[in-house]
């Protein structure tokens, strides 16, 4: 039995990610159980943990602190593979400039920045914010979660803020929207994605399959 805990701290719709994991589990020849929960004991008993997040970072961090989700994530990071998605990824960093500046968990070294109100592409054309839709991800490091995912595949994004870090060694994938930005990060048994794999059709499901099979080593 492969038990996946999706951490539920009340922020957003976790049904999509749970349904996608169940779908991938059915396609694999192994028993997969997906639990959407905030219960620290249940999460401690899971084989793998998903740390999701949508909406504003201030609200997310408030709930993370209120429910002591930071400690749950910290414990998980020490013992098992963890996949952080969208605002879940952003919450792992030091700070975000959203909502006038919000202190985040600081488990990964870097910051979360706004795309800007007057974002333009290389030809000077205006780019809408949020960055919403399918964009290409260039794989900068070979990683088990990229197995069978073609380089420069398009994933589904929806976000107005992005991660920036000095540690190029942590960056596993980059995208471009006005500027290059970090699409995915990895640090030991953490893999973090700005896009939504559960909404990214075949390539997204492949990445989730890789996560279900990943032992947390690189």
């Amino acid at each position, binding site marked *: 039995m492969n038990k996946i805990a999706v951490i539920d701290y009340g922020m*957003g719709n976790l049904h999509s990610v749970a349904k996608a994991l169940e779908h991938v589990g059915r396609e694999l020849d192994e028993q997969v159980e997906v639990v959407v929960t905030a219960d620290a004991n249940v999460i401690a008993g899971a084989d793998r943990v998903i740390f999701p997040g949508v909406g504003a970072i201030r609200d997310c961090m408030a709930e993370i602190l209120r429910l002591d989700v930071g400690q749950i994530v910290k414990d998980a990071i020490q013992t098992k593979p963890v996949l952080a998605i969208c605002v879940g990824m952003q919450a792992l960093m030091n700070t975000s400039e959203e909502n006038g500046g919000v202190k985040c968990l600081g488990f990964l070294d870097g910051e979360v920045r706004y795309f800007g109100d007057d974002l333009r592409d290389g030809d000077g054309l205006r780019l809408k914010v949020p960055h919403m839709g399918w*964009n290409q991800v260039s794989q900068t490091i070979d990683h088990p979660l990229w197995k069978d995912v073609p380089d420069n595949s398009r994933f589904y994004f929806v976000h107005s803020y992005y991660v920036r870090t000095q540690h190029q060694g942590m960056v596993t994938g980059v995208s471009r929207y006005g500027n290059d930005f970090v699409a995915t990060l990895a640090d030991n048994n953490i893999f973090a994605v700005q896009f939504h794999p559960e909404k990214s059709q075949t390539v997204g499901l492949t990445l989730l399959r890789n996560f279900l099979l990943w032992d947390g080593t690189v």
Partner: protein
Amino acid sequence: MALAKRIIPCLDCENGRVVKGVKFLDIRDAGDPVEVSKRYCDAGADEITFLDITASHEGRETTVHTVEAIASQVFIPLTVGGGIRTLEDIRTMLNAGADKIGINTAAVVNPEFVREAAERFGSQCIVVAVDAKRVSIDDELPKWEIFTHGGRKPTGIDAIEWVKRMVSFGAGEILLTSMDRDGTKSGFDLELNREVSRAVQVPLIASGGVGNLQHLVDGVLEGEADAVLAASIFHFQEYSIQEAKQYMAAKGIEVRL
């Protein structure tokens, strides 16, 4: 490397069946929204929009089950709209597996509803759907007004002012339908789309009037839309999603192939 323009097939559904364009389809399975959604997803649709036009309360139960069935098999974004009036309606559809919720008449009746919805569920899942009709005459500056109830009821609200207001209230995306063009197959109202696209920072989905693939191209290049929505040209099976994307790519538009 750039963000792709999206192609969004739209399913108008009544009591659990796709109704728009249904007479053109093979009668065996064509009316099942789950089958149709899967087919579009496999063909490369970037998102699915499901518009519920069911009037009865019992029928809405069916809609929730249909959304659940689609969401458990289709792993691309799913927008659900039609008859959304309360925060509870939104929660029900999100729990059923919708990713975004379209709000139309309820926003006009009570604009604060959009603010509350965005605050509760996040702007990323709130799509304000706008039905606009041109009200200026030929030599005047162009002007569009918001209509509700499927284009029958005028509101006196200026379309451009309205979308700006909705975005300031937290709308994460605008789904704009030209009532003059809807069902005509004569192409989008490009001027309307361009004005709206330039007025707001959030993405714009153009809708209403697509009759051929060049109309999709025009919607992006001239209407400055970030996504194009169509129903009958795909239900018709006159064009496939892949053909549409290849046509757009050949015209220099970034698409997900």
